[in-house]
């Protein structure tokens, strides 16, 4: 059972509901350099940042039809960074004019024993992967260009193979609920990346 749908009200029960606004696209490997070059020019001036993350997706099955999904992510190249636990709700079906995919999101930083704790709660790991790529920022927008690697032996993050010959590009913003002008800013930024990459709102349900 997913949590009750989050409405336009940003505050429920004393906590602010944060929403993730998302646009996705992809580029073939050989176009990566030009995209990175364009992003370096458009985005905030900072040291080029790369990352290698290991993400595990956990499911909690109850009597309800759909299991509860939690994503646990840890950095493989930054020692001492906290683990990141993320809950993503169902995409808000609303305004067809809204330019980005909007879903409720809860981000929690945790200690390293997260996987043991989740197992104790009853969660079971559904799948895992390694993401390796580049990170850019423009104001509150985050642009990530990364490649997904399949883990061949469960738990062994050294032995991986690329899932495809392309890089996934994601433009996202995490903002309080009700701030729809954010998706306009995102669309304007996405326009600047054309024709290198076409970022669009992709409904996950239509892919399944």
């Amino acid at each position: 059972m997913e949590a009750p749908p989050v409405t336009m009200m940003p505050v429920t029960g004393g906590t602010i509901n944060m929403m993730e606004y998302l646009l996705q696209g992809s580029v073939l490997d050989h176009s990566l350099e030009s995209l990175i070059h364009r992003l370096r020019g458009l985005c905030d001036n900072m040291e080029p940042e790369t990352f290698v993350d290991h993400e595990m997706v956990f499911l909690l099955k109850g009597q309800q039809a759909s299991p509860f999904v939690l994503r646990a992510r840890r950095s493989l190249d930054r020692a001492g960074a906290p683990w990141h636990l993320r809950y993503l709700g169902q995409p808000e079906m609303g305004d067809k004019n809204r330019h980005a995919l909007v879903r409720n999101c809860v981000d929690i930083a945790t200690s390293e024993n997260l996987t043991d704790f989740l197992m104790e709660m009853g969660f079971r790991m559904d799948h895992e992967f390694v993401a390796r790529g580049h990170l850019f920022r423009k104001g509150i927008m985050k642009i990530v260009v990364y490649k997904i690697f399949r883990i061949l032996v469960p738990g062994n993050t050294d032995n991986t193979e690329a899932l495809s010959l392309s890089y996934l590009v994601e433009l996202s913003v995490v903002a309080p609920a009700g701030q729809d002008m954010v998706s306009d800013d995102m669309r304007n930024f996405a326009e600047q990346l054309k024709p290198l990459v076409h970022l669009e709102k992709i409904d996950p349900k239509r892919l399944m």
Partner: protein
Amino acid sequence: MGVTCVSQMPVAEGKSVQQTVELLTRELEMLGAEKQGTFCVDDETYHTAASTLGSQGQAGKLMYVMHNSEYPLSCFALFENGPCLVADTNFDVLMVKLKGFFQSAKASKIETRGTRYQYYDFLVKVGTVTMGPSARGISVEGEYGPSVVASDCWSLLLEFLQSFLGSNTPGAPTVFGNRHDAVYSPADTMLQYMGLFNKIRRQQQGPVAGIR
């Protein structure tokens, strides 16, 4: 954050909870400790909802979600005899989302509130443990700031506790256990509080109830 010992102070003969707390705080003030604000440690119990039990084939587990005013941006989640997760306060928001799978046992929410006293390198917190409207006991927490290795400073901490607790001084906490040279962490303090709260929960609801 240093090595900490959490213990329960029995209520003095013929006195109420509040009076015993006052006796203790007076002892501390005579020792020369300075009052430094207040503290609060709370604990809420969650149990696995009946709907998830069938598919897992395991007995319902109790999960404790605790907060400590000493670490205001953190949330501690523990299972008895299980791992202790240290997370940020968004974990509470997640528990709201998990309402269908984990139900909060509102009646068993327990907390301890009181004053913080600083005495040189030591920090002492004397709190009244309450469950709902009734006072159920007294918690005493003693911390030796400079050290994070229990085996290095336990005897010093014990001696300090004896100076105001007298015969009510506790033995070495079980969290110090076998890991003599391990680095002490806030999660160990929360484990001690969980143990204390569980002991108080199991004590009969009788004579100690009610703040007189």
